[in-house]
């Protein structure tokens, strides 16, 4: 279980997260929602150790992550699919996957699993990743993160800018991953996606926890979520 407890993060003198708390249980999809600039991506970066936390705790299955060097955190079982994909654009599809595999160290079975989820990538192994379509790039971004065999996957707006068929594929894959025991912290702004996928929604505003809604509350009164998202 990933527990974020009263985390504060600053960019230099400017504090952007204030006492943020949330939990992601095993096999859960927790959705992190909020308007642009609310601090969702900052929180993902802080979890990955890419931004230092000034106070608070981040623990995964009881192990403190906050004090670990950033390059150690992926080995503990957390992987990030960043906003905008951020592939290693000059590397081939195969090399992008290899980066994740080097860290994780277990090649054959992981690749087989990934190619079952995204068969198209197997056909494109030698292709330079910047020449892939937007949807294929998103598949690769997810596949690269899955090469780490994560317990918790941070998905930062994974369907942003994708065509509807690709959005469906990414959502279906997300559900499949949860069935396979991967926990997911999903940064999402689309109302339908949040309703369809999440077990819980944590809404943040100006870097602070504003509201936490569980599935029954969401289904009972979706207007609260709409208001929080400004829809």
């Amino acid at each position, binding site marked *: 279980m990933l527990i974020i407890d009263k985390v504060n993060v600053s960019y230099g003198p400017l504090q952007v997260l204030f006492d943020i708390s949330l939990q992601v249980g095993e096999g859960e999809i927790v959705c992190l929602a909020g308007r642009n600039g609310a601090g969702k991506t900052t929180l993902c970066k802080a979890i990955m*150790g*890419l931004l230092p936390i000034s106070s608070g705790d981040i623990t995964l299955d009881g192990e403190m992550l906050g004090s670990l060097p950033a*390059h150690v*955190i*992926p080995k503990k079982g957390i992987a990030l699919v960043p906003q905008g994909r951020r592939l290693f654009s000059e590397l081939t599809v195969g090399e992008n996957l*290899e*980066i994740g595999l080097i860290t994780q160290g277990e090649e054959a079975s992981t690749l087989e699993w990934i190619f079952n989820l995204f068969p198209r990538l197997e056909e494109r192994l030698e292709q330079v990743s910047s020449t892939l379509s937007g949807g294929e790039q998103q598949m690769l971004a997810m596949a*690269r993160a899955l090469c*780490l065999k994560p317990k918790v996957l941070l998905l930062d707006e994974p369907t942003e800018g994708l065509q509807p068929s690709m959005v469906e594929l990414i959502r279906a894959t997300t559900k499949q991953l949860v069935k396979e025991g991967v926990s997911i912290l999903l940064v999402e702004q689309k109302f339908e996606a949040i309703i369809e996928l999440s077990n819980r929604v944590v809404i943040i505003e100006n870097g602070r926890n504003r509201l936490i809604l569980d599935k029954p509350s969401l289904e009972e009164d979706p207007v609260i979520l709409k208001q929080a998202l400004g829809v």
Partner: protein
Amino acid sequence: MEFGPYLIIALFEGALTSAVIALTAVGLSVVFGLMRVVNVAHGEFFMLGAVFTWFITWNLGLNPTVGFITALLLVPLAVGSLATLADRLILNRLDYDPERTIVATIGLLYLIQQSTLMSYGPDARPVEPPFNHRIALPWIELGESGWQIYWPWGFGITTYKLAVILAAIVLLWILLRLLARTKYGLLIRATQQDSEMALAFGIPVSRVYAIVFGIGGGLAALGAVLIVPIRQAHYLMGGEPLLLSFIVVIVGGLGSIPGTILAAILIGMSDGLISVFFSPTLAKIVATLLVVFVLIFRPNGLFGKNQQ
């Protein structure tokens, strides 16, 4: 001697300069491409390579060939280790900030230069090449009785210079293969493209930086080991390779290794030709003018990408 043989000698001297500049400048380029650090002390790693080579070949009581081979193996490692130490002690602590690292490497330049002056002294000292045979070359000319082969006086090359050119080609080929085909090369290329994502995928970025800074220093030292039997070791000898490396890296495109190699060939050849037919000073003026034109018309160099 006729123009033709002169031209061949000029091209050969140009190839020698290209070979040594390419090795030295690729070191600078790899460091800049990965870390965005402009290493002003790069020429001092070159100088240390030459001085250490002199020390090994003159002070360890080895015969010239054994001494030179020992230097070829040990000196790049020693200088590379010093560069890695400099990364850990200085650049890492400055968080690789581009402006502050320029000032810091200027300080490092003077630290290395003055330490060498105090310990090694101000004299230029020779290093004996492991082998140095002269190969006379023939020339063909149309005479009264048709095409004739003759041996112009002074027209030839030395085996050592030829070996330096071949060694540089082999070493650069190995470096490119290592970067393109090995696991460590892959980690370096990934870190070069997006260091934050590299961290997020478990690559120890600061360790990669330290290793690459060591490789950069080691390559400069390797260039010096190869050239010192031709040019002597001196505590101020780092200035010229630094200037030429900067010219080559800017012309080739910051961080682009193929661009750096191509620019080294261009600058080295023009240096050889202009030095033989006119003067070495004019060769440097032309190289510097080339940088000015490249900066005006192609600010990112011949092979560089937009750095914005």
